[in-house]
């Protein structure tokens, strides 16, 4: 999947030729959506702490009791959200997946965060789909889901 930033996708070889109409079209589309992307990013940045705290407070008591796993799970969820936000901003949906793939599955196993991760991330997606507009959530969703996939790639069952 070539899901890098649009400027990296363009081959940038001016000695060969000008960009094709198709490449320019993709670039145009990205530039056109940039205002929306920046707005969404800014909102996520402002909401982060309260948004995540709200999700944590609604977790079942038994999940809240395991503080070590919960704290790690919260950090993981925040990382996923931050990488998704940045990935959305720069149109690189795989950014989080790429940076976290050699790491996140190990942490899920070591800290036994699976239960908390599933609950937090499910609630996160629901909450974001409510808070963001349809078009904003559509911009964020690929990057978010791509990073969240790693939570299910662990060796534990």
């Amino acid at each position, binding site marked *: 999947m070539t899901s890098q930033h649009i400027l990296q996708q363009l081959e940038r070889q001016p000695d060969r030729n000008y960009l094709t109409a198709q490449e320019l079209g993709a670039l145009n589309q990205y530039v056109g959506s940039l205002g929306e992307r920046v707005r969404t990013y800014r909102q996520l940045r402002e909401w982060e702490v309260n948004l995540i705290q709200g999700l*944590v*407070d609604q977790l079942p008591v038994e999940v809240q009791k395991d*503080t070590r796993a*919960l704290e790690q799970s919260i950090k993981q969820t*925040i*990382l996923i959200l931050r990488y998704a936000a940045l990935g959305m901003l720069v149109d690189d949906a795989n950014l989080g997946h790429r*940076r*976290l793939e*050699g790491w*996140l599955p190990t942490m899920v196993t070591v800290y036994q965060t699976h239960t908390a991760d599933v609950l937090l991330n499910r609630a996160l997606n629901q909450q974001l789909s409510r808070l963001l507009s349809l078009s904003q959530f559509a911009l964020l969703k690929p990057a978010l889901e791509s990073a969240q996939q790693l939570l299910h790639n662990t060796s534990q069952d």
Partner: protein
Amino acid sequence: MVLVADLLTDANLTANYFANDVYIHGTLELGLLENRRGDRLLALPNTLIRAIYAGLDHETGQASMLVLYNCGRWWGKNFYIRFCEELSDYHNRPVTSLSMAEFMQALQQCWLTHGWGQISLDSTYRAQGFLVLKIRASAFIEDAPKLDRPVGFLETGVLQSFFSQLSGQTLHCVQTDCESLGAEENCFVLGLKERLVVAEAGVEQRLSHAEIMAALVE
């Protein structure tokens, strides 16, 4: 009750320090490749690695295996110190507070990012006092001269001194399987020297890794 704001105050959220697209930087106009702390990195061309093997063989013959193994040990000693320094600086806590799995994750990612291949730990024989490390797609074995024995001399040395420092014991290392002999991955057994005599003998007799491990834990 867990307060999210408290989790975000002390330091940055730490994750995958050695992730390849953030670990390697460069001040290319000055001809410098650097890691994320600004230490110099170097891209080693295959032809240079092959030239080192050939030059050593030409000058020292049989002794070149020992020279490489000792270079590996020297490398491992310094590599361990730097590796721990980088990790503890990044996580803002001592390396000893990381679990073995977290430590190995970092080592695996570090190995990958430097292009040395894929390293993994097999702790099946840990209770019996042996650690097995496996390396796939080794950069150093690929270019080593073909001999009728395992040729991961550098890695044997580096693993031996790295894990000796990690465990606080003087360990010995024997390579029991080698990609140069058609194996799928390179296997290295670490343990106390006197207990690995059997493994050395097994390598001489061309036993497989599985056979050697069976003989070791017998």
